């Protein structure tokens, strides 16, 4: 495990990237960041600017217009950056798959490191996803 990966996984600053969601996933993300779960114990902090981000929490479906913004935000994030697709919409398109302006899932636009299905996923599921992602980055089984 390299120094860079070690430092990155010990201080994950998350940025909340919502692309036309129904807001349920966003509310659950905010729930996960409340004092009850206290993610600052693991160095996870919510940041306001994508330039400060290490993790992009992507929620919602990205239609043809929003997909352009998704790519630009991903390019604006300083690398290394990891992406978590949160909710069934971001993972698969959910029930909007047949919609006229829906294009492709998030992982066809930008590389996604972890998928977290659920409509919406619980805060516990998000913490579990982050733990799995950290283990994946560190190369542990």
């Amino acid at each position, binding site marked *: 495990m390299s120094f860079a990966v070690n430092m990155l996984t010990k201080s994950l600053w998350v940025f909340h990237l919502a692309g036309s969601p129904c807001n349920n996933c966003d509310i659950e993300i905010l729930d996960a960041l409340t004092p009850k779960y206290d993610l600052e114990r693991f*160095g996870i902090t919510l940041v306001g600017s994508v330039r400060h981000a290490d993790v992009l929490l992507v929620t919602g479906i990205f239609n043809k217009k929003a997909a352009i913004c998704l790519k630009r935000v991903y390019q604006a994030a300083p690398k290394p950056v990891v992406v978590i697709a949160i909710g069934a919409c971001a993972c698969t398109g959910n029930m909007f798959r047949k919609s006229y302006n829906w294009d492709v899932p998030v992982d066809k636009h930008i590389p996604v490191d972890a998928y977290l299905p659920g409509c919406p996923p619980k805060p516990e599921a998000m913490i579990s996803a982050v733990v799995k992602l950290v283990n994946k980055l560190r190369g542990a089984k």
Partner: protein
Amino acid sequence: MDLGYLILQVVVFPGLLFTAVVGLITSWIDRKVTARVQMRVGPPFLQPFYDVLKLMIKETCIPAGASRGLFLSAPLFGMASAALASMLIWRAFLPLGQTFSGDIIVILYLLTIPAVSVILGSFASRNPLASLGGSREMKLLLAYELPFVLAMLVPVIQTHSIRLSSLLAADPAVYSPSGIIALVVAILCMQAKLTLVPFDAPEAETELTGGAYVEYSGPPLGIFKLTRAMMLFTMPIFLVAVFCGGIVFNQGWLPILLGALKYVGLVVVVVLIRNTAPRVRIDQAVKFFWGPVTVAALVAVMAAFMGW
């Protein structure tokens, strides 16, 4: 004095490295006390170190159209002057050679430069949110400098000296009524100088998404964070030196412990203010500092002239 020894003082102890390490520990105290106030467990002891080291390995994005040189060098000015101010204060505590023992005016100027570097960096980054944050920082700087300098006048009038070493040799200013008022004024100004809540309008996470720092990423952002941590160490230690008799190092362990307690006490006061107050608008902050705070500082100065 040997030049190498001087450089060692600036870079290692009590300059850059020492200030950075103690500043990061102080920012851990800040975060831990905040967590306890919110009934959380809080971050591990080394979390501020992880944060800064992580920022050092990230990519540096330079926004299109930004003034490249100023954008990258602004954080360095701030860090250098914070380290230099801390070094001058510590040289008054410790016998580290007396070529230039430093007076209050130099330290006051050096403590202003980190805020100026934030203003320069935010304007160089060519982002509307950053320039809004920069303009707020500038207004805040104009607001708190006047009462801060007036408060610093009180111990100067009492001891008839602007040298930090003679302030430390005299009776601490807080033993007099004028000194107490001046200390309260200085604590409020310190809160604004550190841009902590309620005076964090330049950053304003909720509406400016990081304000002055919005375009910064990677190592320059890490240096800004480090500078903030260093200021969180330097400002309370400066107030301890000017008002509370500083930290006495040549009389055994008890005075050192007492000095450390004074310092931690001031830091906890700052953290508790930050956790119990809502953010004020920038015009409210300017009115507050130019109104009641400046009047209180003037009263303290007059009281000091009359010998109270």
